């Protein structure tokens, strides 16, 4: 009796396994994509990167004629997602989204094999800007610089060696000021709250992240650190216009595992390009105020290489271990 039952159980088990396996297995369709493409997001759901990826996906699905699944892996500040990609098979089935934070990981003590990353496409190019409280005494960048050189101002950043720490360090070096760096490891929202409450004196962060607080008149942008003005604050001059030759581009792009075939990369590049022009993505960019910038495989690879060199120098300069 119990033997029959065991057999029955085994059979049912096999059927179940077969059904589930059958859902994942593909028929003999084109070479790419083979089943679901996994899109790794090294942040929790709801953040800027997460929304960007989710807005790209609908058009990518259509273009690739396959499913693209977003997977949030925020553990260890994205280190787990990064090593996940680095150790994946080089078939383009796993994508990874990040800003230059990826290049900064090794400096923060995270073991990431950057040579295992193949840049695919850049989709966003934002910028840092100098943001102060609306009722701060400095009306212009000049007044601010003079004050900052004479006094030790408190600047918020999002963790030692992280993106907004470097932007602040770069500014400090450029204007020869000495800041007191205060860490807000939860990120942009936490930094901006502290600025709005007057706990710190400035943030060197993107105007897009601060849109709500700028629009409501709690915060004020003194200057943007890019070549052109920013859509969120079109009336604010660039640093260059004011005679301070400093830019701090903040880019976000898509990576896959190094060694992925050229044809697959070309397919992905085309799909992502279409996705950056899709209504979902352009609406999101407009509402959030971040500028879209597309760079293809070759251009983006060269750009990432330049950026890597730049940070190497910057890190050595500031002797941040």
């Amino acid at each position, binding site marked *: 009796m119990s033997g029959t039952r065991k057999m029955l159980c085994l059979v049912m088990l096999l059927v179940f396994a077969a059904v589930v396996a059958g859902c994942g297995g593909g028929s003999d369709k084109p070479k790419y994509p083979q089943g679901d493409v996994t899109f790794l997001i090294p942040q929790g759901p709801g953040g800027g990167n997460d929304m960007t990826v989710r807005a790209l996906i609908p058009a990518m699905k259509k273009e690739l004629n396959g499913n693209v699944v977003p997977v949030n892996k925020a553990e260890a500040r994205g280190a787990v997602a990064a090593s996940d990609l680095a150790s994946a098979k080089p078939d383009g089935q796993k994508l990874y989204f990040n800003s230059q934070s990826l290049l900064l990981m090794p400096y923060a003590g995270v073991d990431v094999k950057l040579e295992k990353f193949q840049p695919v496409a850049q989709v966003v190019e934002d910028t840092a800007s100098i943001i102060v409280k609306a009722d701060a005494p400095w009306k212009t960048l000049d007044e601010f610089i003079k004050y900052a050189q004479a006094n030790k101002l408190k600047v918020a950043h999002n963790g030692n060696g992280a993106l907004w720490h470097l932007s602040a360090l770069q500014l400090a070096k450029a204007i020869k000021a000495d800041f007191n760096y205060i860490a807000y490891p939860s990120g942009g929202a936490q930094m901006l709250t502290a600025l709005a409450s007057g*706990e710190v004196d400035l943030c060197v962060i993107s105007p897009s992240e601060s849109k709500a607080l700028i629009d409501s008149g709690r915060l004020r942008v003194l200057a943007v650190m890019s070549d052109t003005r920013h859509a969120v604050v079109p009336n604010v001059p660039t640093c260059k216009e004011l005679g301070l030759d400093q830019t701090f581009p903040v880019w976000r792009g898509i990576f896959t595992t190094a060694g992925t075939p050229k044809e697959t990369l070309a397919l992905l590049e085309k799909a992502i390009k279409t996705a950056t022009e899709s209504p979902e993505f352009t609406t999101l960019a407009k509402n959030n105020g971040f500028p879209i910038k597309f760079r293809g495989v070759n251009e983006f690879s060269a750009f990432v290489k330049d950026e890597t060199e730049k940070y190497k120098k910057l890190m050595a300069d500031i002797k941040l271990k």
Partner: protein
Amino acid sequence: MSFEFYTAGWQLFTLPVLAYMLLGTVIGIIIGALPGLTAMMAVSVLVPLTYTLSPTAGIIMLLGVYCGANYGGSISATLVNIPGTPSAVMTTMDGYPLGQKGKAGLAIGTATVASGLGGIFSVVTMAMFAPLIANIALKFTSLEIFAIALFGVTIMGYISPGSVLKGLISGVFGLLIGCIGFDPTTAVPRFTFGEQNLLSGVQFVAAMIGLFGLAEILLASEKIKDLQTRPELFKMQNPLECLKYLRTLWGNLLRSSVIGVIVGAVPGTGGTIAAIVGYAVQKKVSKNPEGMGKGAVEGIAAPEAANNACCGGALTTLLSLGIPGDAVTAILIGAFVLHGLTPGPMLFESNPDLVSAIFIGMFLIQMLIIALGLNFAQYFAKLLLVPRPILNTIILALCVVGTYGVQNSIFDIGTMIVFAVLGYVMAKASIPRAPIVLALILGPVMEENLRRWLSLAEGHVLESLAGAFTTNPIAMAILAITALTLVLPLFQKSGRLNEGMAEHIVGGKK
């Protein structure tokens, strides 16, 4: 704000919107009740799905999920001692013991009514004083948040019945576990033993489910022959019984709701901390503090009112500042943006009818929670009539998959099992487990804000502290209250510390 403003949203409440609101609330309650599925996960999965709905329907549905899940966690906390969502962790303190006394109906009823009333209080304050609350929230800087966390930590020793000393040891151990991972100020990895998965610390939900849920099942599996259902224990009484207690609870509910609104509005805190602070305050003002932790109705009402009031508080900050008040509202921003809206004060001018609809919707959702909770409480409790081998196995599988789901990590399942074994050993050695969980939540918040305040002081610690009396009066007031509640019992003849010692010695003789 004019009267028209409050009623402007009514026209948006079409039948489909009401249907989505009901759907969202029901989904929320179920998700909240399932261990491992949190409000955050549910909202983030549903955000893209609401794209096809109208903005009002989408946002109201998500709010239903948010509030429903916050309440639903109390159901599993009461019935099986597993907080379905982290914010229900304090509800296990009294909800489970009360359920074990055969009064699961009373426990769930109290949790329902307290949740609903806390939520309604928060909606009303949000609608009437949103700008004011937002301004108060901005007054809570690092020192204030540190003070709140410290206040919560001081009840570590007294939170569970038994030895105070062992409670404190357990708590300090939890604080130490909270140190694992990147240091908040300098990003130096601490106590990670080279394990990459530990860099961002021990995953809190995994630890909590292990210590409470899984450990409980390990304890139950000791004597397999006794693993029978005891139907007489779970006979559902009328959940409306709680209304009899309501008379004694008004002060408690009001106090806890105010705490919930404020803690919720302060960015960087959330429902879990609100519940702990609500419970801690209740324990300190209670006429019968020894009864708390053994199945006291007041111990269920306080954290539940606080954690649901937190929803309104967090939403207030989102609507009036554009800053998320907690993790779930951070995801809600995505829902707003998806519909072409920027949450923030501009919303009051650009879409007043939507803001008004949100207020009305939140109010209706709280009413729904009370109605659904009281009507279906008896069916929830029926779950316990499922034979224990089956129920426990299903709970085990749920814990494993749910923990995996928090961040799609197998490592977290391992964490959960380790904490389950730890929880089992602690239960056998009669060391209270609750302080560890408390410390895991509050420890990192406390350290981060303390260290930040030290950075801000730039080495002039004493001067800054003296200056804080004028610059941070709220923080100093909270710190003073904390110090008083710590010191006063020492001077009383039957101080709680001494009593705890006595209890400790008696407990040891057993």
